């Protein structure tokens, strides 16, 4: 079990983890010819087309298994703190799920694969969601003092 902390700026862990994320997305492209967009993969499994379900479900269980491996091998990486109220958590989940589908992707489909393919749509979407998220944090933390 690793004890290393993830507090503060962790450049080497960020670069190593990011590289692994990129390689994971490349593996899906190489084997399945698919974009590793997690909201698209999950959303597409909720109302699946014929013959288009199993790879999505297996990707999902891979993610889940990765979470379990983390819990066993590096529990500090799952020492989650969420400070907002439960209604805010529900609103956030709805916005993330619905927004990612309306906007054709999330941090993985647009942020990693789309920006990595230099796709104009993805570069615009990533700039919009990072800006909106920064603005939200500013309003919640510094103007409202928490919700």
């Amino acid at each position, binding site marked *: 079990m690793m004890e290393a902390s993830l507090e503060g700026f962790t450049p080497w862990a960020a670069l190593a983890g990011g590289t692994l994320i990129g390689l994971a997305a490349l593996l899906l492209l190489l084997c399945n010819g698919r974009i590793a967009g997690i909201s698209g993969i999950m959303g597409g499994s909720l109302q699946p087309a014929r013959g288009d379900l199993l790879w999505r479900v297996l990707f999902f269980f891979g993610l889940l*298994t*990765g979470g379990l491996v983390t819990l066993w091998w590096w529990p500090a990486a799952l020492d989650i703190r969420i400070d907002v109220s439960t209604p805010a958590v529900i609103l956030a989940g709805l916005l993330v799920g619905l927004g990612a589908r309306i906007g054709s992707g999330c941090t993985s489909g647009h942020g990693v694969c789309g920006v990595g393919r230099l796709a104009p749509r993805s570069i615009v979407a990533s700039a919009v969601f990072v800006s909106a998220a920064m603005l939200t944090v500013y309003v919640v933390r510094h103007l409202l003092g928490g919700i």
Partner: protein
Amino acid sequence: MLGLVGSFCSGLLFAIGLSIAGMTLPQKVLAFLDVTGDWDPSLALVMISSAGIYLVLHRLVLLRGQPLASPKFYMPTRRDIDAPLVVGAAMFGIGWGLVGLCPGPAVAALASWHEDALVFFVSMIAGMYAYGTLNVIGSHDPDGGASALDLLLGKR
């Protein structure tokens, strides 16, 4: 079979990458988004390294012409910057900024059994399901958009 194993392994590696990068911790994501607070630039390095390695190597993968276990590459083809793209991204960003979880970390975080992370996951699925119910036709498009590089190289 290879396609299914590859799909599982991709998800597994993706989640392990997220956790090594610290992106399974919403407090660390929010520390990046909080530019006027005690700023933690880690997430910027995660974006640069993940998109960077994808940028270099995905062209090599596409040179194969066909994936290992699938008849073709399912690439996004849209190039238009339309209202749903911008409005959806803004909604996503507001939700992401409220809690610090996005879809990948939200799944990996289920392993923690943290109550708020479970509530977030269920709400996120409800949001995705609502979209699929309202707009079944669009819901099978791959995420993202067409590559500008293809345009420059004269491909569609």
